């Protein structure tokens, strides 16, 4: 029951990330239509959010303990990648007052950090559950 709650939290976070990355938490938009340095980063965040959402849906339906453990571990890695995406792995605009620096970067890092925490709790819960059942 508790693990299902964690999975639902993970799914909600993933949906917020994915929807946010194309709306309020998205990259900067130039008035002349040209691409900002953060445009690609926004796309990568969207992809990572969708991946996280798909994995969460799998977690809701898959019952095999080992498979669930692996899925939780993958979500943790995806969340960690998401934390590192804006600014570390991928570029954002260089001015602090740009939308991607003011809103997208901090919000996405916080959301992915929460997703990482949830995934870590899920992984621990799965490990202890597997131990209890002697698998």
């Amino acid at each position, binding site marked *: 029951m508790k693990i299902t709650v964690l999975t639902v939290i993970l799914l909600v976070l993933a949906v917020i990330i994915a929807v946010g990355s194309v709306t309020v938490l998205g990259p*900067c938009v*130039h008035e002349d239509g040209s691409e*900002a*340095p953060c445009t690609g980063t926004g796309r990568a965040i969207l992809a990572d959010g969708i991946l996280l959402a798909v994995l969460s849906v799998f977690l809701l339906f898959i019952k095999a303990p080992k498979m669930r453990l692996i899925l939780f571990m993958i979500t943790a890695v995806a969340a960690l990648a998401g934390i590192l995406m804006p600014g570390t792995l991928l570029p954002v*605009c*260089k*001015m*602090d*007052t*740009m939308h991607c*620096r*003011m*809103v997208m*970067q*901090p*919000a996405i*890092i*916080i959301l992915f950090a929460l997703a990482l925490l949830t995934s870590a709790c899920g992984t621990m819960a799965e490990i202890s559950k597997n131990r209890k059942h002697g698998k």
Partner: protein
Amino acid sequence: MKRTSPVIKNLTRKSGRTTALVLLTALLALAVFGGSIVILSLRGGLNSLENRLGADVIVVPSTARSKTNLEQILLQGTTGYFYMDREKLDKIIATDGVESASAQLFLASLRASCCSVPVQVIGFDQATDFTVRPWITESYSRTLNEKEVAVGCRVSAGIGESIRIYGVNCPVVARLAETGTGLDTAVYCSQETLQLLLDAARDLGHDLKISGSSENVISAVYIKVRDDYDAQKVADDINIHIRKVEAVSTKSMLTGVSDSLKAVSGTITWLIIALWILALVILFIVFAMMVNERRRELAVYRLLGMSRKMLSSMILKEALLCSLAGALCGVALGSALVFPFTTLIEQSLKLPYLTPAAGTIVLCAALALAVTVISGSAASLRTARKLSRVDPGTTLREGA
């Protein structure tokens, strides 16, 4: 076998009630911590602006939007430019009460190579300046040579890199300390460099509305008034005697900012008070409800040999643990909401905003923790006293 404390057992057994208590106390801590950090940051921003302005009077061209533009440049980092004849500087210097005056020249870049947005370029006279120079000296003691620039802390160009403005490569020689104002997003250079940039902009076909040579124009004059003169009177004198300029006393500009700051701080303070009253009332109600709910449970504890003091202390410990957990969550949530979004808060409030030093932040967190834990425990005191007086025999007979 590991023995769990009855306090922890009680809390985990009624997880719904515990979660509600933790959330309520978290709300209290969040309000106190987040609110106080925002108020302190706004005060810090105003102090920083006061220190950075350095002048008593600023003179700008009297074109309708010049004063608004100047405030926007200084407070919000909006880019802008306006020009007047350099001869106005001589007339201003000749005004009674003017101790020293220094001209500045403004230019808004198009999209600079460092950034995806235009940046404000400010050219100051290195020989007479008394506003920008002391600030630059904190990180760079030499004179700025031709094309060399110093950048505000929010312009992302490191020392040794170059910024390309209107096709001119300008090496960055210094990064300035944070002020929490619009000055953090500007680029500073000598007036000679700025004249060079003005010419480059004009060569690229940008209409800067300058007639004649760029050497004959200035954007603003910063004035230091003699101690025995009133800044407002000097500003009025300039407005009366020099045509097509508007002298603004920085005191009046700061008063405007200070009034806005008071309004925002007042709203935040009232919000905190309202939240506190609401949360405290709910806490009292929750604890009062516990009296009836736990009467029989505590009667059994008394029958098992627990003294009244032990019962009170158990209830107090429960409240203390819940409050502490809530307070920690509230401070963590407050940190996650306030610190990463500093620029967003500053841009939304349109006021100078400078995050306090680490020591002050730690003090605020400790204060929020203490106040929340004390309030949570105080709310449970009455309940603890009432429940400890429960007569076990009567209570169990009533329920039978």
